[in-house]
């Protein structure tokens, strides 16, 4: 199977990335609708947050602080579930977390989709592609740094609100793979820029 052009590996990947992009976008919209709908209709909603911690297998607490109840920590799932009512801090953390993950993911898949479209047209070395790849690299680096800062505040919030009642200690889980990937993608972007230069020089020679 050829790698570039129509009916190639690139076209298969473009379809996969496009499906991922639209599925993510749809999921993001549905998630926002559910969150805002629950808040408007019920005033209270159930939160499920991903957490890393050191603790026994399952912990439960009926009420930890004002506006937070039915707290359950599932060690095997790495999840903290609880009900919250009119709590702006909970909403802020939920929205920021969702915006950070979906924002980066949607941006990266959109750029990938555009890059793969140019591969399908058999034009890999475009100056736009070099820019898109660099943008992906910068997005990954920013994600890595911002998620580390966000994670620090998130863990601090969890430890002040839930740790004592649940008898656990929440820990920061920072994945530096995104930092490495960002650097790697920046280098690939530079290679594409050189390729685009070669392509332009060839076009001028002809």
């Amino acid at each position, binding site marked *: 199977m*050829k*790698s*570039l052009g129509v009916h190639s*590996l*690139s076209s*298969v*990947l473009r379809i*996969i990335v496009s499906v991922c992009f639209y599925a993510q976008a749809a999921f993001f919209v549905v998630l926002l609708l559910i969150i805002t709908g629950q808040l408007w209709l019920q005033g209270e909603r159930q939160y499920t947050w*991903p*957490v*890393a*911690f050191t603790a026994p*297998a399952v912990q439960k607490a009926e009420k930890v602080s004002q506006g937070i109840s039915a707290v359950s920590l599932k*060690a*095997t*799932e*790495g999840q903290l579930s609880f009900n919250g009512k009119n709590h702006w801090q909970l909403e802020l953390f939920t929205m920021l977390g969702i915006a950070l993950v979906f924002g980066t993911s949607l941006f990266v898949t959109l750029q990938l989709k555009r890059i*793969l479209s140019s*591969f399908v047209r058999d034009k*890999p*070395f475009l100056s736009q592609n070099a820019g898109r790849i660099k943008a992906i690299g910068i997005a990954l680096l920013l994600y890595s740094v911002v998620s580390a800062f966000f994670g620090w505040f998130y863990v601090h919030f969890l430890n002040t609100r839930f740790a004592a009642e649940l008898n656990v200690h929440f820990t920061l889980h920072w994945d*530096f793979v995104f*930092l*490495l990937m960002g*650097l*790697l993608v*920046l*280098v*690939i972007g*530079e*290679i*594409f820029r*050189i*390729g685009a230069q*070669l*392509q332009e*020089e*060839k076009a001028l*020679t002809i």
Partner: protein
Amino acid sequence: MLLLGHRFIRWACFLALFLIVVQLLLGIEWLWGDIQRYRTGDALDAIRGYRYSIWEILRDFSVVLSGILVLLLLLRIFISFKNDRIFDAVNIRRLRSVGWIYLGYAAVRIILLVIIITCVVRVSGTLPLLHRLAYGLAPVSGYVLYGLIVWVVAAVFREGLQLQEDQELTV
């Protein structure tokens, strides 16, 4: 061109090596830890016995081995950039090897996942829930995708090599 310069590559290599060593140290924690402990976020680890830990050690070993191989190949590619010959036939082969390693690793993960699930079924007498199976398969599909993307990048490098050779012939 500054990004591909000697200093950047050296620092990128050092950073990558430092981070991979940290990752390895975190990854081989089980060597001195309690092997039957619960690990957060991994549903299949909830049911675990010493008899079946060999498959988990193999799973961790495949992570480390494939990680080292990919890193070595990438380092050799980066180091070859020092010669200012970006598009090179050897680099294309290295990139294709990286793609194969990703696909091979995904295959190993699938085989080990099947074995671990069989072990879980023997111990618990029940089949893991579907979403738990999906949890185990999700990273595998990611590695297949990475492998295919690296192959496409290798094909782009081949195009670049042709352009580079055309330019050298023109000059």
